[in-house]
């Protein structure tokens, strides 16, 4: 069936310029195309899938199409990663490349959004793929159950519009930052420990490795003493998602050449220059 027939079909079922989810599913079935393909077609014709209605004062239809055509690498699917994946999928980023070697363990349950007793022992990337399919089936997920390294990094991140750091090791973070510099892909860094967190952006040509001092041979920081409560990853991942959205949409002022150090215990937000 031609694109014109599909266009007519969607236009007839649109409410104003909003395309209800039921119509997106009906079109998918009728025309034998994925809901993602229907979403792309609808956005091309300036129809906004109804699920994004509350985005629209912040994210225009053209912006939503840009997000749909974006591919974001999420490296680490634990504390930060779970919130990052949830928010990026709901925002409408079209493709998520998920990288994590681990399975869910009991000590993840205090904070990792995607963890639950039923998922103990299951691969984090598999649970993440199911979660995205459940909340926004128009998002394509490329799961990789592997540990990120300099060796596999280029291949994992190929074609990514931006990358976000959900790792739990400073040394691997340095490798991620190096691969992103080599590829010229923007990176949104985030790290947490106890009540504290930090966020920064590395744009092509920039270098945030001075924030990631290799002082600890274990690759671990003060989180080994402080642990990680439920709210810190949620805060830091949300700040990272805002930076990612701005990178993908070319908006606002980024945390490039500076970092934000967050102290939730005293509610202090300090800026660190690192240019």
């Amino acid at each position, binding site marked *: 069936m031609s694109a014109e027939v599909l266009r007519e079909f969607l236009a007839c079922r649109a409410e104003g310029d909003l395309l209800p989810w039921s119509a997106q599913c009906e079109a998918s079935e009728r025309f034998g195309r994925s809901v993602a393909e229907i979403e792309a077609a609808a956005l091309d014709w300036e129809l906004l899938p109804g699920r994004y209605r509350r985005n629209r004062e912040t994210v225009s239809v053209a912006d939503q199409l840009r997000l749909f055509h974006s591919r974001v690498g999420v490296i*680490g699917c*634990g*504390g*930060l*990663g779970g919130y990052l994946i949830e928010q990026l999928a709901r925002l409408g980023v079209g493709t998520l490349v998920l990288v994590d070697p681990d399975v869910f363990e009991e000590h993840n349950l205090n904070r990792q959004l995607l963890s639950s007793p039923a998922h103990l022992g299951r691969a984090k990337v598999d649970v993440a793929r199911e979660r995205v399919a459940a909340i926004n089936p128009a998002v394509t997920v490329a799961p990789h159950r592997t540990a990120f390294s300099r060796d596999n990094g280029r291949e994992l991140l190929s074609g990514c519009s931006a990358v976000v*750091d*959900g*790792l*739990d*090791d*400073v040394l691997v*973070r340095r490798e991620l930052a190096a691969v992103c510099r080599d590829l010229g892909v923007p990176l949104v860094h*985030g*790290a*947490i*420990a*106890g*009540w*504290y*967190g*930090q966020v920064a952006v590395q744009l092509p040509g920039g270098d945030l490795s*001075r*924030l990631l*001092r290799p*002082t*600890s*041979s274990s*690759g*671990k*920081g*003060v*989180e*080994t*003493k*402080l642990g*990680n409560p439920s709210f810190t*990853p949620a805060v830091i991942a949300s700040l990272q998602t805002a930076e990612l959205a701005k990178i993908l949409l070319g908006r606002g002022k980024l945390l490039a050449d500076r*970092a934000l*150090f967050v*102290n939730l*215990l005293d509610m202090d937000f*300090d800026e*660190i*220059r*690192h240019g």
Partner: protein
Amino acid sequence: MLTIKLFATFQKGRFEAARRECPPGITLGKIVDELGIAREEIGVLLVSGRHAELEHVPAAGDTIAIFPLLGGG
């Protein structure tokens, strides 16, 4: 005279900000050691807003900021 600012866990049992008279030629590493801060716990070390290494010798009037290394995700 140097101003030393400590962040997050480094404030515990110490201070948020203090002005200290330090002997000329003292390195950041020595200052950190005298504060009882473990070097491997330092994430960011700034001297008057610029990144510096432990071997750096600050000048009179500098402000030193010391942040802990955050590695979790």
